[in-house]
């Protein structure tokens, strides 16, 4: 992020030849290196002095960065407000926990299965509700979340309203609960890095260009040849994959999953605040917004006065951003340092 960085290679160049050239091309892309650095920093910092408290704080930040980054694909690129984005997280959590607890699947396999199945489900939902626009789409996404929540609360194999409690045995394959928490933490950090990479890869791809065009003016995009129904549904589906995986890992860590916690609409709204705070449509902004929001909330929750008011503050924050700084933190950065637009996508 320092001024010494040379101007970035043009992202559009995508050599298809040898793996070595490909690797070289990656190294020439400062943003990808930056993502890798962030991932490594997240992994190493708490390990340094075995700081469990820091690990827990960073774990939450990584979860939120994952949620915000993927939400940004639909919200920031395609311009569709997905109020019910948390449904991917909750549903992913349920699928993963069920497979681990009832069928004794290994965690990684269960999490990936959760990601794939929730993505497919999102594709089906997406083809339906993405015909709607504006406020109607936003309402429909809330409907999806609430409908899934109501279904799960009455779905006995998943424990109904009481949910599923993980038995301690499931941590044994990972070397007991203590070690399992570290492993889950590293996995979540990896998913976070993958989310950032995915956001970046989509933004600099033809797919991303189509989504951005839809976000700007959907009718004009269609006249220019963008297959708007397919692109929107794909974006919605893709944005479900990693949140579902991170949901699986997160609830594996907490050891319990129940409908209220899994499909918490507040968390959905908080994810929107994070994206807006950092800068809608930017990879860096979604991540920074999530990180700062999570850290600030952590501080607020531990103070006497604010612990009950953190949602009030989230609401006020959203209001202030929408009114005075719709482009968020990155809007400010880009204005101050225009060259950053290229470097920090």
């Amino acid at each position, binding site marked *: 992020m320092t001024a010494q960085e040379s101007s970035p290679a043009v992202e*559009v160049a*995508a050599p298809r030849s040898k793996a070595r050239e490909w690797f070289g091309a990656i190294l020439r892309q400062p943003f990808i290196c930056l993502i890798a650095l962030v991932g490594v920093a997240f992994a190493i910092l708490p390990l340094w002095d075995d700081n469990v408290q820091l690990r827990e704080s960073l774990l939450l930040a990584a979860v939120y960065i994952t949620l915000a980054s993927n939400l940004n694909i639909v919200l920031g690129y395609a311009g569709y407000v997905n109020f019910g984005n948390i449904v991917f997280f909750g549903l992913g959590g349920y699928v993963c926990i069920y497979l681990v607890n009832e069928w004794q699947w290994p965690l990684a396999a269960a999490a990936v299965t959760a990601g794939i199945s929730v993505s497919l489900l999102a594709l089906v939902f997406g083809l339906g509700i993405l015909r709607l626009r504006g406020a109607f789409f936003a309402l429909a996404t809330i409907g999806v979340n609430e409908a899934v929540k109501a279904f799960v609360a009455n779905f006995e194999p998943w424990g109904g309203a009481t949910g599923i409690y993980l038995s301690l045995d499931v941590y044994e394959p990972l070397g007991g609960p203590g070690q399992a928490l570290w492993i889950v933490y590293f996995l979540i950090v990896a998913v976070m890095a993958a989310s950032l990479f995915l956001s970046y890869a989509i933004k600099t791809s033809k797919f991303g260009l189509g989504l951005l065009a839809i976000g700007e003016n959907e009718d004009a995009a269609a006249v*220019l*040849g*963008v297959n708007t129904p397919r692109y929107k549904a794909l974006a919605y589906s893709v944005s479900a994959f990693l949140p579902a995986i991170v949901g699986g890992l997160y609830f594996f860590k907490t050891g319990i999953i129940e409908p209220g916690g899994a499909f918490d609409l507040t968390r959905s709204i908080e994810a929107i605040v994070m994206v807006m705070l950092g800068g809608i449509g930017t990879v860096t902004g979604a991540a920074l917004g999530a990180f700062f929001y999570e850290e600030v909330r952590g501080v607020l929750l531990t103070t006497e006065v604010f612990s009950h008011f953190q949602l009030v503050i989230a609401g006020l924050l959203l209001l202030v951003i929408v009114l005075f700084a719709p482009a968020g933190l990155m809007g400010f950065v880009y204005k101050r340092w225009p060259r950053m637009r290229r470097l920090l996508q």
Partner: protein
Amino acid sequence: MTDLLEVAGVKKHFGGVTAVHDLSFTVRDGEILGVIGPNGAGKSTVFNVINGVYPPDEGRIVFKGQDITGEPAYRVARRGIARAHQIVQPLATMTVLENCTVGACFGRENLPLARAQEVVREAAEIVGLTDRLDQLAGQLTTAGKKRLELARALSAHPELLLLDEVLAGLNPTEIERMIAVIRRIRDRGIAILMIEHVMRAIMSLSDRIVVLNLGGKLAEGTPQSVARNPDVIAAYLGEAEPTPAGMVH
């Protein structure tokens, strides 16, 4: 010359209002076909039916021998019909380059990102936007946005270009420049179907002209023959309020 586009017996109603009534005409390879007519004659509706914004109630649209009636806009674009809008539709917070890249990547040639640049520069060159490529589309002047509409459509390498009042809102100097741009486009072999109210321009540019009135075809022919047609003169200067030729609305 063979027929590139055939509009056959198209009807379109909106509620009780008949916007287009049993309209037929053809666009031939490489020609400029002008469409004129008083306000409300159904000109923009015809464009919307051709490029798939909405389907006709009756009738067929045939492009290069294939029936494309009722196909969605993105598929029509992919077939090689590009459009410049009457009311400019810039992708405002994207640059001119990015706007045109969308045209190039999703138009007829379906180019990958890496190969779009060259095409876009060429299109920008034709319309004279080369020095504006890195500017945000929303920051262009009205004339600039009109040029952007053209550049974006050209980036798709279309075979047929629909121009919906690209001269409206421009001053005389800008109109002169734009006319030159349209000639340059035609010289590249792209057929053009254009709606225009600036009579001087459409008379000099068009190979043939179709005159619409009340959703139907009033006359068709060379600019000279259309200008002398008594029905056309009546529609423009007849019983109703006079609409002076050359008026920009």
